[in-house]
């Protein structure tokens, strides 16, 4: 699964869906799944390729969502501009948090903790500050015109999020093929060795963090635009931190298509369970938690990795499989 072909196939297949399916339920499901895939693709850049597992990507999702909403509600800024500003705000948050955390040399558990703490601080501040609507949240005014980035039909929204996901896929693909991507993977596999070879680990990780935050912030901007409502529990809540890391890990951590595959699989399973067992609070997240454990236990390289292994076994491809992440190193 190398090269741009799988990306083109996946995007084309998803673009064809509205031509065949007209159900609003299905479209809504896909919009939300793609939204999570986008947030997950952001996480995948720093977490998957860079090996820095953030437990607080809500910090970027929420900053994007709030920036978009605040600019429109309080300052009457055009929605498209607000969207771009939201992405920029998320990238800035990524730069600040990344610079602080990486400058302090935080790795592994410590990095997970500090990202989680930043997201929580932002959540609590957003729940009391007047500019974020405090406990009430912010409602974006309904204005169903394309120039306000709001649409009468769900299909238009669907194509917007699909386009965003496609851009994120291309970014991941370009990173994977670039020298920068090689540095990033080298840092993931062995930071000290990479530095000994002259890779500036701090700058590489910081750059990856900024890209990562920008992509996840775009998901937040889209959320605000699609649901026209943001509050502190949605924007900076732990749910999005968890889903952003869950999707690439289920799909295949450090692979271009992993987050997309993971998001579709996780959402399908979650919705399927609701259909079978009835909509009860906690059910879908319970399944996500179990999936996370099961995937790490039985398919550490995710669904994409498992698919590649199977294809190799069936067709005996001579392409060498990438060694499982870090498995050998610790014994």
């Amino acid at each position, binding site marked *: 699964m190398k090269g741009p072909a799988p990306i083109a196939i996946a995007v084309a297949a998803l673009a064809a869906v509205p031509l065949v399916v007209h159900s609003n339920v299905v479209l809504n499901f896909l919009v939300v799944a793609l939204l999570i895939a986008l947030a997950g693709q952001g996480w995948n850049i720093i977490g998957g390729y860079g*090996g820095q*597992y953030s*437990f607080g990507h809500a910090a970027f999702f929420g900053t994007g969502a709030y920036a978009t909403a605040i600019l429109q509600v309080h300052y009457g800024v055009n929605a498209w501009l607000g969207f771009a500003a939201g992405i920029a705000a998320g990238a800035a948050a990524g730069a600040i948090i990344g610079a*602080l*955390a990486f*400058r*302090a*040399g*935080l790795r*592994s*558990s*410590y990095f*997970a*903790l*500090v990202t*989680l*703490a*930043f997201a*929580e*601080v932002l959540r*609590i*501040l957003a*729940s*009391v500050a007047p500019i974020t609507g405090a406990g009430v949240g912010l409602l974006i005014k309904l204005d169903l015109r394309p120039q306000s980035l709001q649409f009468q039909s769900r299909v238009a929204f669907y194509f917007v999020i699909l386009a965003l996901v496609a851009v994120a896929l291309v970014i991941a693909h370009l990173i994977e093929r670039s020298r920068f991507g090689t540095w990033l993977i080298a840092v993931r596999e062995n930071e000290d060795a990479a530095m000994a070879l002259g890779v500036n680990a701090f700058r590489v990780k910081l750059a990856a963090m900024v890209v990562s935050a920008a992509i996840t912030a775009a998901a937040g901007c889209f959320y605000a635009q699609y649901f026209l409502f943001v509050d502190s529990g949605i924007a900076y809540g732990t749910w999005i931190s*968890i889903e952003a*890391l869950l999707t690439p*890990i289920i799909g295949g951590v450090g692979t271009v298509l992993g987050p997309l595959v993971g998001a579709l699989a996780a959402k399908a399973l979650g919705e399927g369970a609701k259909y079978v067992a009835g909509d*009860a*609070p*906690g*059910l879908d*997240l*319970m399944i*996500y*938690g*179990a*999936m*996370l*454990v*099961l995937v*790490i*236990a*039985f398919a*550490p390289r995710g669904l994409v990795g498992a698919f590649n292994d199977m294809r190799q076994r069936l067709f005996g491809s001579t392409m060498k499989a990438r060694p*499982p*992440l*870090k*498995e050998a*190193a*610790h*014994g």
Partner: protein
Amino acid sequence: MLSPLILVTAVLNGLMTGAVYALVALGLTLIYGVLHIINFAHGAMLSAALFAAFFAYQKFGLDPYLAVFLIAPLFFALGYALQRFVIGPSSHGDDRNMLLVTLGLAVFIENALLYAFRANTRTIDLPYGFKSIDLGFTFLAMPRVISFAAVFIVALALWLIMTLTDTGKAIRAVAKEKLGAELAGIDVAHIYAMTFGLGTACVAIAACLLIPTYYATPGAGNAFVLVAFTIVVLGGMGSVPGALIGGLVIGVVESLAGFFFGESLGQVGIFLIFIVVLLVRPRGLFGASA
């Protein structure tokens, strides 16, 4: 105006809350000291234990202070089994995987509780729940005084286990030098699971001490564990005295900050301490090495 007696009361109350924080942090720091991972399932385990203590009283009329002798061993066994049969095998010896597995368990347990019991707040009414001790200038709630004392008994017991028993020695050996301990014939998987069991037993005891004055909800444990993260980082990951002192300090800071700035900003204060310590001195105040 502000009387010093009110401040003293706030400090005393902070110390008592802090003691329970310290107990939760003790479990967390013990696990970190040996396994070198943050157990993200700690909060979910605390919620589960709160429910266990609640139902022990409601269904069987079991006083929480008696139930602790049942619930603590039960959660020890649960923690042991989780590490031995779930977390250990499924993480393939990689720290990052271990982190994710504990997170997955946290999400699973918390939402299983939500699915089974819904988000209702459950409290128990003990006959002595509202008794208080008169100090002359202020009153202290009886259950909180009991829990304050109990935390130090548990800490002492833990210290005795660590210094006197063979298991304790093996745990310390694995924490210091895993490979060396393995070569000396210590079953590392077993010791990991024992440590995880002890850490989980700590939250079970904390739950029994909390339930008389607190409540059980699926997310109840998280409030404590986010604070416990701060304490563990402040006191130094893996340091037991650090967890105790850090717990008391944070309890007082929270109480005073809440007193001066209001509840939610008091919480922000704790997180800011957390972030500053992480960024400036990740070893913590008592930690040996990061």
